[in-house]
């Protein structure tokens, strides 16, 4: 079935193992090596962005200024958002795609291995440049991860130019990654693997990759216009020169809304693999899942102005974007109903990947509900730019993206390392994360509805109690992630030997190769019935 080669064989044949030393990682074109590097990079960024969140929560623990100045607080909220979006979540999904897509479609590697190496190695440099702005004169970006002009142009710190360059590099990396994924999926499927036989993780990534190619250039355009406004005397976003600050928001959110689906669609694929595996029952409504994903991707392009209900767009525009946004609830609902029906009358067990997946369904749905509330434009006049929005997008991003990434790591760790992880510790990690996450973000709904604006370092007294609770939850969630690091390292270094297919109900080509997966898999394509 596969050329399960001895990876350390010294004999001179074409199948060889990894090179030795540091250069293995610098020069590698192996999808598994690159996948691992993406995942480690993403984890480091997750801890970095998380540390900034801890500073934010510490400052907000009580009203009054305590540990940081407002100017620095704004840099923290900005960098937290940028690092989590561009450094943690997106690279983690690309890492998972690198590891799993070739194995799931029976391909020997990614279609363009050399470009794969390049698209990874841009990232650390872009991230270092972005973070280095914090140490520059005038501080780092302080205008929020949405960097609305003119705050981010005429009124920005000098380091903004470095921020723009970092965004360009991150964008180039994402586009190359997306091209690679599309080329791999469309060209390297094993014989018999028709499109409608592909695992949903492959499907959702295919659609995500198209979203990336569509919108990353738009983001590049936005930051380039900023660059020109700052340094070359143009007035794209400067009303005084005939430009339009609102134009910036239109461009940003034309990128930004598909971007949030870029961070959620691969999760849908992961959960659609894990729930059937642990319910021991095939996914309900595979076809409708594919169509729902495509519908969500399509809708993501025509709802951007729901982020701008208060900027004063005309009534007719307001109505269009409200209706279009409400529509998203339909395909998203279909997905949730399908997952629940998959569980219904299955035969479930609750290993850690399943726990994270169930939490994903419940909490992502709660985030979806608040999203539906936000879509009601008149009500959005009260919700907009309050902590209600912060609660909403953390409910879709933390359990949505991060929990799905945790679930994927636990699900595929035996395949990656050849060892089972420590189930007791992993369940502890789950429960502490679950409690911490809800304790942090649920009270934010309350303070938001009660009138607390977002992105403020200090607040009125009536918000004090819930903020205190949020901070305690934040510290719990934050420190728990070191346990995750410990579990991963423990699993890499040893543990119970994992069989080729450690999960009873798991399906897919990746389980047909030994654990750990050999350095080269499917050098001869498998036969898919």
């Amino acid at each position: 079935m596969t050329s399960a080669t001895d990876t350390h064989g010294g004999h001179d044949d074409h199948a060889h193992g990894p090179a030795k030393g540091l250069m293995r990682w610098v020069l590698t074109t192996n999808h598994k090596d690159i996948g691992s590097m993406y995942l480690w990079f993403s984890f480091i960024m997750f801890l970095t962005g998380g540390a900034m969140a801890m500073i934010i929560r510490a400052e907000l623990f009580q009203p009054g200024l305590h540990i940081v100045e407002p100017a620095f607080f704004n840099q923290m909220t900005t960098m937290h958002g940028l690092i989590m979006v561009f450094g943690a979540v997106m690279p983690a999904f690309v890492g998972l795609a690198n590891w799993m897509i070739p194995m799931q479609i029976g391909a020997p590697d990614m279609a363009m291995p050399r470009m794969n190496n390049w698209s990874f190695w841009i990232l650390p440099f872009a991230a270092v440049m972005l973070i280095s702005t914090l140490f520059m004169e005038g501080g780092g970006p302080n205008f929020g991860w949405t960097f609305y002009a003119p705050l981010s142009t005429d009124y920005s710190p000098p380091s903004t130019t470095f921020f723009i360059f970092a965004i360009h590099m991150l964008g180039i990396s994402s586009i190359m990654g997306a091209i690679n994924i599309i080329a791999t999926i469309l060209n390297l499927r094993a014989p018999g693997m028709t499109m409608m036989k592909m695992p949903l993780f492959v499907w959702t990534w295919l659609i995500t990759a198209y979203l990336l190619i569509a919108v990353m250039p738009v983001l590049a355009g936005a930051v380039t216009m900023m660059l020109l406004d700052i340094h070359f005397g143009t007035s794209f976003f400067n009303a005084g020169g005939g430009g339009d600050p609102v134009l910036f928001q239109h461009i940003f959110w034309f990128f930004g809304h598909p971007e949030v689906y870029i961070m959620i669609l691969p999760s849908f694929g992961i959960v659609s693999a894990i729930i059937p595996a642990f319910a021991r029952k095939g996914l309900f409504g595979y076809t409708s899942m594919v169509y729902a994903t495509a519908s969500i991707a399509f809708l993501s392009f025509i709802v951007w102005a729901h982020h701008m209900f208060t900027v004063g767009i005309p009534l007719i525009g307001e109505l269009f974007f409200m209706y279009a946004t409400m529509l998203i609830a339909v395909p998203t609902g279909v997905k949730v109903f399908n997952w629940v029906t998959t569980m219904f009358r299955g035969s479930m067990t609750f290993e850690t990947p399943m726990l994270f997946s169930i939490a994903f369904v419940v909490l992502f749905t709660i985030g979806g509900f608040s999203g539906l509330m936000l879509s009601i434009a008149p009500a959005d006049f009260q919700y907009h730019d309050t902590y209600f929005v912060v609660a909403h997008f953390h409910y879709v991003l933390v359990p949505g993206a991060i929990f799905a990434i945790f679930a994927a790591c636990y699900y595929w760790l035996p395949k990656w390392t050849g060892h089972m992880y420590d189930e007791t510790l992993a369940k502890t990690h789950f429960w502490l994360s679950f409690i911490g996450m809800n304790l942090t973000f649920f009270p934010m709904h309350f303070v938001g509805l009660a009138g607390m604006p977002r992105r403020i370092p200090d607040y009125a007294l009536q918000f004090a109690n819930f903020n205190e609770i949020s901070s305690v939850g934040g510290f719990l969630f934050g420190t728990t992630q070191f346990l995750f690091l410990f579990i991963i390292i423990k699993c890499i270094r040893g543990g119970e030997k994992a069989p080729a297919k450690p999960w009873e109900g798991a399906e897919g080509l990746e389980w047909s190769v030994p654990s750990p997966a050999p350095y080269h898999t499917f050098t001869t394509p498998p036969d898919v019935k």
Partner: protein
Amino acid sequence: MRQQARSLFLLLAGSTASGSSLAEWEVNMTEGVTAVSRNIYGLHMTILMICVVIGVIVFGVMFYSIFKHRKSKGAVPQQFHESTLVEIAWTSIPFLILVLMAIPATKTLVDIYNTDEADIDIKITGYQWKWQYEYVGEDVSFFSNLSTPREEVTNVRTKNPNYLLEVDEPLVIPVGKKVRFLVTAADVIHSWWVPALAVKRDAIPGFINEAWTNIDVPGTYRGQCAELCGKDHGYMPIVVEAKSEADYEAWLVAKKEEAEKERELTDKVWSMEELMARGEQTYNKVCAVCHQVNGTGMPPLFPALKGSAMATEASQIAAHVDIVVNGKKGTAMQSFANQLSEVDIAAVVTYERNAWGNNTGEMVTPKEVMEYKKTGKYVEETAKQAMPAKQQASL
């Protein structure tokens, strides 16, 4: 600490009835004091209830499965994987619910957008980090700054109940009248938001957005800027005082008289001490947010004034007056021509040229500032020449 333990206990006990601190546990949107705000509250509760009902059904089925259909209870997986009928049902039913929801939402939105036939127009301009209110056609205009003392922010003094939600001069409007707000900004984007009125409109430089309200109940309503606008975004609150029509008219008259008195002050002959005293006051209220109380600023965004060429070199007096009057384009340094009276501008410039060891002994008078505003030229007033040297010694 004790307070914290108590609040945690209250939360765990699920109690919200903690007497005076009731508001601290507020979990829901305000109903507000206008017809629009009540409509919005109604929409909010309706959509929330729809979500709760759907949630109970979906999570109900899910948790039923989790408890019943587990391997440890000997559940055997059924093999059903597709049902077009079911898929159609759970596509179309939510769609119908959404259509029903869209109808009242559309009605309210149309109402919010109807800014016609207002009784009073007020132009609201957002600045870093304060609001300006201009009563169109009334010749009344003023700035509204945060009035919470710095010591409360830095935790030196106990915080008062309206901490960060109090201003020196609130916006005053009459009840029972349709008031139209024309919202714009002078520098970056801000957002004018008062929850009780359910009005939130972005204040965008170069644009004038419209919004309106019609308040039923007299009272004081508090809000905040809702769009990140730089360092002190958290420190630009909004206070609206809704008064009866008679009280509003009386306030308007008093406001006009006050402005007249302020204008007369320009003609007065000011001594160095008087200007310094007034300058210190104005500086700390208006300038210190960026340039800091001790004049060291926060370079490079907010330059230092202490020891700077602009504030110490005699040849730079005109430039100094100019930057305060006209601001500096493309930076946070705004024009204060309409924000501060001639007296205040003169006092601030004088203060900046003599405080923190910038002992230039130079003094700028209100008349000079007025002259500068009119002609764009700084001409030293001859009458003041005799004073400074001696005054300087006594400072």
